[in-house]
């Protein structure tokens, strides 16, 4: 018998806690309302940056989020350098790429292994999973730490990098450090591929699947990369990154603190690992191409739950490519620092980077004295919100139609899985231990 007149409320998203929440209103067997609300901290920073010198931007903007700190740093530096007309040297470009790969390793390892895999394997946490997969669970944490190590070596510390500067790097890694890192990265590939084999055996539910438009940057070279100069959609459109405001149309909705995004056509879209594989997966090489073939044997299909496996493919790519970048850097002469001379001038610049959760846009306008006149940051999570609501609605409708949605607890868990598959970054910078009253 159909369940009538009920509200499903998920005040915080389980493993994605913060000020976010999901509200679903069901009447009879029809979904009347699906709302997702998040708190978006980056908007505060836009106001905070006005009037500050451009050299202060990266130290401030990186505080939007610790796990996204490498991403925001590179996006901000790229935008500012574009405003000032600064060209990156080969080494600076490679090192920033390496830092982004470190951030991707850290972020994807934590999300895939600690947050997603337990769901799909039927465990309530990564610790419970250790009973059946002890070696895998131990390796997963060491891989996350390897991502921190990459960021620490390049950026000077694992979060909120300090070596990175407008025009270059204040300190460069020594060759022996890069060689040590390269060896550790190469050693991580075999155990990582065992996760790919494990994931390939896990059936992924299809109740959230539906046709989706994807957006990602075209890589700057003919290979799978996290940086590019133009914005592409899976419908074949392509735009220069400077016109991102015409492509990503932001709008406000009553139920959310964050702005939503859609394309000019009004369609919602998805950014992130699944989008990148959909558009550029055929550019993957080596072990990452093997992982892609195992997890997406028929290519990328429209099912947001597969974003977890897309992250796993990217994790293989990030480890493999980071080792290659170390090798490239070892081919350059050792140096203490690298800086390009530049003149301060008035200008406007956009930086767009593919970060773990999707395409990140930063834009700054700078006056002739080097002060920030305006700042604009559009995060992947904000861009994915409208699509998330759409997928949540589809999931509820499919589950109700298949008579799997009568139980509130099951429905909530399934909706949380949809939201978590986007790996949203939601007010993620609080660290509280929650004690039961009896604990003191």
């Amino acid at each position, binding site marked *: 018998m159909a369940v009538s007149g009920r509200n499903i409320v998920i005040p915080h998203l389980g493993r994605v*806690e913060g000020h976010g929440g999901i509200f679903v209103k069901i009447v009879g067997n029809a979904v009347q309302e699906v709302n997702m609300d998040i708190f978006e901290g980056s908007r505060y920073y836009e106001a905070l940056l006005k009037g500050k010198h451009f050299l202060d931007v990266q130290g401030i903007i990186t505080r939007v989020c610790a796990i996204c700190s490498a991403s925001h740093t590179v996006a901000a530096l790229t935008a500012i350098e574009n405003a000032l007309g600064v060209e990156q040297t080969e080494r600076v470009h490679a090192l920033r790429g390496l830092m982004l790969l470190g951030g991707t390793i850290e972020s994807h390892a934590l999300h895939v292994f600690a947050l997603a895999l337990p769901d799909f394997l039927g465990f309530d946490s990564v610790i419970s999973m*250790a009973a059946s997969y002890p070696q895998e669970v131990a390796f997963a944490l060491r891989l996350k*730490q390897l991502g921190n190590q990459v960021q620490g070596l390049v950026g000077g510390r694992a979060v909120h990098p300090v070596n990175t500067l407008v025009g270059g790097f204040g300190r460069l890694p020594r060759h022996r450090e890069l060689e040590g890192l390269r060896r550790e990265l190469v050693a991580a590939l075999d155990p990582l591929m065992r996760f790919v084999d494990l994931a390939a055996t896990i059936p992924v539910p299809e109740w959230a699947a539906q046709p989706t438009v994807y957006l990602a940057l075209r890589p700057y070279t003919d290979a799978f990369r996290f940086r590019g100069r133009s914005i592409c959609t899976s419908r074949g459109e392509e735009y220069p990154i400077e016109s991102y405001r015409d492509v990503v149309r932001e709008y406000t909705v009553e139920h959310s603190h964050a702005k939503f995004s859609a394309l000019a056509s009004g369609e919602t879209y998805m950014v992130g690992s699944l989008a990148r594989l959909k558009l550029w997966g055929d550019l993957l090489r080596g072990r990452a191409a093997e992982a892609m073939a195992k997890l997406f044997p028929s290519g990328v299909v429209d099912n947001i739950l597969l974003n977890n496996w897309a992250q796993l493919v990217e994790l293989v790519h990030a480890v493999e490519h980071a080792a290659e970048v170390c090798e490239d850097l070892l081919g350059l002469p050792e140096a203490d620092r690298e800086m390009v001379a530049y003149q301060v001038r008035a200008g406007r610049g956009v930086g767009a980077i593919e970060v773990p959760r999707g395409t990140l846009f930063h834009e700054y306008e700078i006056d002739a004295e080097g002060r920030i006149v305006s700042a604009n940051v559009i995060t992947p999570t904000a861009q994915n919100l409208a699509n998330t609501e759409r997928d949540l609605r589809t999931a509820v409708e499919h589950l109700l139609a298949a008579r799997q949605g009568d139980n509130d607890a099951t429905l909530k868990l399934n909706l949380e899985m949809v939201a978590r598959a986007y790996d949203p970054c939601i007010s993620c910078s*609080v660290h509280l*231990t929650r004690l039961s009253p009896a604990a003191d």
Partner: protein
Amino acid sequence: MRRLLVVGFGNPLQGDDGAGPAVVARLLAGGLPAGCRAVDGGADALRLPDLWRGEEEVLLVDAVASGAPPGTVHRLDHEALLGVAQRHATAHYLSLPESLRWIALAYPDMARVRYRMWGIEAARVALGSGLSPAVAAAVEQTAEEIAAVCLSWSAAADPSGP
């Protein structure tokens, strides 16, 4: 010589969530005896293996939420801390107890570490710096207690001592 590590977790940009780093700052300002080290652990407890240098005992400070009056200082021994059921702290971070459980599985060397925790009940956790008065007072109290623990530890651990 046996060694001891103090780590404060939290984000000073989120009000009282910065209690842990504030305690560490107080300890560093006051100076620590030989064999004792204090570090700001940031918001990700899973980074503990990067901060650890073989210390036998690790004292942890974190903001907590239990419903007790703001500024209440909760003291948890090793077993009580690892027994806290909370799994996830935020979108990307596991809780402190869950992080410690995972670390013990992934880093066999650290399985022998004994933890103690000081948890400071938060009043205001929201974007903005500065501690609320009750939490600021609890930070002072906790820093004094931990400084005393460090002193007695150092005296007991120093083989040249009495």
